[in-house]
């Protein structure tokens, strides 16, 4: 099937998912904004005003870390079982399973980018940004999106064969939230544990946002972007290889 066909199928599934999610809800599509904004406000309140973390430009720090994190965690926890939940459709129509994952990722990406731009515009009134850093943001978005897509594809394929994957993923996402320097700076982690941050793919995907918006440095940004794409390619290779290896059995096991 052509790329145009896949594009239309993905767009249709994404819009259907969005429409269905907010049908019969009071706030409707406003939930797209409300959820990340509430999370942002709660974190800002707790860490800046109650725990009084001494971090320069904390709102920018939080915007560049927390919102990409919400995108990663919500996408992978909600797409890990989607081959199973979309079983009927996958077995009934000629829908490429990757289109299902892609539609989930696009859906969550839209939910991420709208509040991200909204908060960025609000903060740009009082904060100053480096425009070279902002020009780098599309690269950070691309790497993050592709990385999360491949990770979601890998996990949802694994879930078809190993039904524990969903529970392990949820558990790891919850644990990683505290272990990844998202709402606190990396230097608070003792030296002997820094290695765990280096091998954390989510930190690698979030870091270009931090450098581009919070503490801009061109060489650090290039280095972080390369590492981010490195993890994206690694997960891409793993996801595609596992996908090709198990493709025939996937339809039977879902």
């Amino acid at each position: 099937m052509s790329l145009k066909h896949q594009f239309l199928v993905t767009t249709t599934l994404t819009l259907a998912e969005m429409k269905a999610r907010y049908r019969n809800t009071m706030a409707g599509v406003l939930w797209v904004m409300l959820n990340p904004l509430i999370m942002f406000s709660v974190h800002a309140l707790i860490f800046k005003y109650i725990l009084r973390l001494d971090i320069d430009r904390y709102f920018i720090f939080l915007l560049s870390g927390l919102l990409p994190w919400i995108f990663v965690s919500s996408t992978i926890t909600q797409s890990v079982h989607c081959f199973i939940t979309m079983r009927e459709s996958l077995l009934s129509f000629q829908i490429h399973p990757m289109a299902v994952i892609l539609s989930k990722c696009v859906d969550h990406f839209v939910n991420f980018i709208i509040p991200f731009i909204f908060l960025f515009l609000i903060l740009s009134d009082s904060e100053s940004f480096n425009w070279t850093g902002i020009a780098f943001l599309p690269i950070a978005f691309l790497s993050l999106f592709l990385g999360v897509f491949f990770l979601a594809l890998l996990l949802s394929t694994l879930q078809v064969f190993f039904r524990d994957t969903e529970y392990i993923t949820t558990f790891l996402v919850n644990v990683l939230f505290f272990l990844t320097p998202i709402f606190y700076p990396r230097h608070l982690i003792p030296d002997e544990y820094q290695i765990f941050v280096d091998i954390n793919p989510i930190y690698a995907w979030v870091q270009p946002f931090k450098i581009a918006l919070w503490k801009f440095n061109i060489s650090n940004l290039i280095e972080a972007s390369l590492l981010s794409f490195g993890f994206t390619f690694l997960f891409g290779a793993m996801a595609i290889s596992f996908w090709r290896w198990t493709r025939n059995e996937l339809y039977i096991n879902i």
Partner: protein
Amino acid sequence: MNSTSISETVLTIKDLTISYNFSRYQAKGIRDLFVSFFTSPFTFIFSRQQKVDVLRDFNLNVKKGDIVGILGINGAGKTTLCRTIAGMYGSRDEIEVNGLLRAIFDTASVIQPELSGRENAWIITNILYSHLPKKERKAIVEDSLEFTELNEYIDSPFKIYSKGMKVRLFLSIVSARPCGLLILDEVFNGADKYFNEKISNRIRGVIKESGAVLFISHSEEVIRDVCNRAIVIGNQQLLYDGSVDGAIGYYNQHFSLELGNELQL
């Protein structure tokens, strides 16, 4: 009815073998893997892959105008064959399809139960007719919704539809435009007699205009009513290919006793 004399080939399958790795066929948890590894690590590492052949060296030619009924006991590989033709399994190196292929394997499945019948009609149309411009897809949706005769239920949530209502919606959309090869798997299950007659006429009309149909059903009556050619699949191969009466006769002669024995067990 015999096969049509028009000799344009729509589907060619040459020496197709479909097999599964049976060890991956059983969904396991991580715990099961640990238990297998620690109870018998040698067997776990060196055990041979359990390959299961669904079809072996399968050959089939379908020509324009053929409405091929596919008969076979449960697990013979009818749906697997059709899904492979539709590109849902493995590679399609041994399969050649001339023209557009449209396949539907379950007419009661749900894409988005929260959305209305009309919205789901749009989703299904966008999936099945993505090659057509939006104006034509809109025409398909409107024509199909009218054909379903669901009237006031069209804008009700899909989750409240009965199986028969879903069948009406799906079949109306699937049969809205001609295509090279149409694959229908047990699609009439759930529809009432009135709609079966109505949709059969519509499908026949679509077939006349274009290609061929592969039609899976366990109902001899429906196969006789819809098809002009039939095949029997069993023991991983094509056992019979010819007239509908011949295929039904072959199937009953070779499988009814086996089936009876299975049921007694």
